[in-house]
């Protein structure tokens, strides 16, 4: 349907309702060509997928029913508790450190030099995946939960202080000036001018990060950082797929529970 079909409209004056956008079409074509090229480079072929489907059927057959033997469950419970503890401690330490670092990185409160230094630190902490950080900490402090906690502290600071700095930069200056006008010192300005404006968002970030740390704490065990990751990895290597399924179901269950809890907490601090 084009606009030229409309009565009383001279066809040469009417623009098409939806003119073609050639650069965009070209970009879509390029993306498609890239996808085909990448598929051919990675030799993803049909035969392999079919063979995979066959494997998948066998794998799922071995997964069911999930393994609920008492000794396995005890092992999984210990691993899961350790993962939860790693997540809690990493969130606590990381969030506690993120508060000063985030304030230092907020350009409306801190001096320019300090703000850039804090931003640089945050950028470095953010650049590596938690698993890679965990590998380095395993080398530095040995196998175990401490390496996992430290790795997640790094990623917590990277995420929470970056977003906290952005939240602080968005606050209204009026309240800060009002508190300052009463002759309050810097600590009081923070306490009564800044924190009331940002506390709800900060708690939201902390709760979100607890969620995310819980997900990641199931993974640092694969490289020796403690938690449920180690039993999970072992179960895969021994082809105990029924144990794998039990662990996966428990992880999904706990994370869903965590999402409910965190949305409750966010409501309370609304």
């Amino acid at each position, binding site marked *: 349907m084009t606009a030229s079909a409309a009565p009383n409209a001279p066809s040469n004056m009417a623009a098409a309702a939806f003119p073609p956008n050639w650069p965009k079409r070209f970009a879509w074509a390029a993306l498609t060509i890239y996808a085909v090229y*990448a598929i051919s480079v990675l030799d993803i072929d049909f035969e392999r997928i079919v063979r995979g489907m066959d494997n998948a059927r066998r794998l799922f057959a071995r997964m069911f029913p999930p393994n609920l033997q008492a000794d396995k469950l005890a092992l999984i419970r210990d691993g899961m508790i350790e993962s939860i503890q790693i997540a*809690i401690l990493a969130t606590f330490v990381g969030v506690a450190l993120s508060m000063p670092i985030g304030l230092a990185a907020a350009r409306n409160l801190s001096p320019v030099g300090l703000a850039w230094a804090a931003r640089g630190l945050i950028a470095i902490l953010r650049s590596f995946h938690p698993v890679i950080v965990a590998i380095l900490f395993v080398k530095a402090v040995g196998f*175990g939960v401490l390496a996992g906690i430290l790795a997640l502290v790094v990623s917590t600071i990277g995420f929470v202080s970056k977003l906290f700095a952005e939240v602080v930069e968005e606050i209204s200056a009026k309240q800060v000036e009002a508190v300052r006008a009463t002759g309050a010192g810097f600590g009081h300005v923070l306490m009564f001018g800044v924190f009331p404006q940002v506390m709800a968002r900060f708690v939201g970030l902390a709760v979100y990060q607890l969620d995310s740390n819980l997900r990641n704490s*199931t993974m640092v065990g694969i490289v020796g950082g403690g938690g449920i990751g180690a039993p999970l990895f072992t179960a895969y290597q021994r082809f105990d797929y029924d144990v794998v399924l039990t662990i996966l179901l428990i992880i999904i269950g706990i994370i869903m529970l965590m999402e409910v809890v965190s949305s409750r907490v966010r409501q309370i601090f609304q």
Partner: protein
Amino acid sequence: MTTRGDPKIWLRFTPAERIGRSMVYIIAAIAVVWSARTIEIIPEFLYDAPQQTADLFQRMWPFDIKYWPFVWKTLVETFHIATLGTILAIMMALPLAFLAARNFTSNAMLRWTAQFIFVSSRSVNSLIWALLFVAIFGPGAVAGVLSIAVRSIGFVGKLFGEALEEAQAGPIEALTATGASKPAILIKGYWPQTEPAFWSIALLRWDINIRESAVLGLVGAGGIGVALDAALNNLYWDQVGLILATILAVVVITEIVTSSIRSRII
């Protein structure tokens, strides 16, 4: 003295709010104390941590340049895994996002199914998805692409579903009134309104996926992680250093590229 009852005292929170907040603080404190007390930290390992760290960095430098051809090959593979995985994830997540959007799907059952798929996809980490797909398709990039794709469905679907719910009803009603077909309403009614959100979600996820696909090789799912795993197993820290420097450079470049594309098209 006035006799008109108690003076009103301004309180920021209602009693219920205060109780709720105190409860959260108390539970948080208990959780931290419980975790700190039961977790076992071996102090002997801590004493030599500074030496170990210094040793680590000494062994990393100078980088083993001879390893570079292999690093470059796996780096290209990482790029393909992240990009293909993102494309695949978007293709699977878009229909689900429409199912999850309240203004598009009225059937609550369908909406919950879509939400459930999103939550499952996000709950399981990409490395754990990778373990599963390595078991199915064998070691290699196929497992990597699929784990990136499956892990990203939840993220892309949830955010794009929310963008769809924010779409204005006006243009859609106008198109419906002209008698436009369902696909035409999708392409000319919903798509123009959600396109900026779509590109920002896709870029954000691609950026995340570049980082994530760098570690998939640790469990055999292809990419630069394969090189990292080999170097770590051999304790060739000079190769590890080279790989970490490469990943750092790639992350910085991706960040620059995505932010420049974002400022140009959004």
